[in-house]
């Protein structure tokens, strides 16, 4: 469980970093690559949070979370 959560967090950080790269690279080109990267990070974040909530409701994780 911890491994999957950390993996998704890393994917979120990578999508954020790519958005930063596109912000620099696509200056004034009218490209929407930065927007797409940020939308991906929002999707991953919301997905992770929903999965954590569902796992808590189903009893897979305790009140202090995934460490217990």
């Amino acid at each position, binding site marked *: 469980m911890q491994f999957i959560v950390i993996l998704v967090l890393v994917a979120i950080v990578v999508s*954020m970093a790519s958005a930063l790269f596109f*912000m*620099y690279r696509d200056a004034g080109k009218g490209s929407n690559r930065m*927007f797409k990267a*940020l939308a991906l990070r929002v999707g991953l974040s919301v997905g992770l*949070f929903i999965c*954590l909530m569902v796992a808590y409701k189903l009893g897979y994780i305790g009140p*202090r979370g*995934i*460490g217990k």
Partner: protein
Amino acid sequence: MSATSHAPGKYFVPEPSKWPLVGSFALLLLAFGAVGTMNKLAWGWWTLAAGSAVLLYMLFGWFGQVIKESESKLYGKNVDISFRWSMSWFIFSEVMFFAAFFGALGFARLHSVPDLASIDSKTLWPNFAGSWPTTGPYIDSPFTPMGAWGIPALNTALLLLSGVWLTLSHHAVIAGHRSKAIGWLALTIVFGVVFLGFQVYEYIHAYSALNLKLTSGIFGSTFFMLTGFHGFHVTVGAIMLFVVLIRLMRGHFTPQNHFAFEAAAWYWHFVDVVWLGLFVIVYML
């Protein structure tokens, strides 16, 4: 400054400015004010407040001047690139800032606390179990750690939703739908402010009901340091987005050219991701 430096294709060089001097004076007042306050001197708070006021005056004046220069079409491609580089370095410094704090928490949890509870330390701390969360071996002040599924989960939902509204606003800017962009961005800011309100409530609850304080050893200091500085960043991000909202309402941005929006939006996404990391690592692990 000669008019030639303002010509198209040239790198814009601004007129000599008072703002760096005003900023230096603000920092001087802030430093003296902070020292005076920490030493409980009568003039400390006043000097700190004066420093904050001068700093706000500088930020308002300097950033306002930059916006005016931008709207006067004085900036070319080179200035645009320099802004993007500056934002990138600022973000890098922010990443390092939070990496140091997360690193401090990780070091304490994975190294210091287990080491103090190890057999080698039994002579010094015979009764220290070393289980997390803990105050550490030498502070006897029992506390209840903040649970993940009350206000923290609600705050996570609020901040993630604010990220969704911001993404919709960003899309509207690119599509040229200004009124939609304004509405979604305003909603983003409202959610950010509500988040801050809940965090204040959480702190009051921690102090009054859980006996969880800044003085609660290693857990209390890392908890309040990480969440407190994050709250400060949410405040700064909300101010940035508010300025961008005003500029959006004044029609400063086009679908092709809206760097200020992009920079503030990226910052907000960053603050959002840091909170998600905090929620998982501080509240859940």
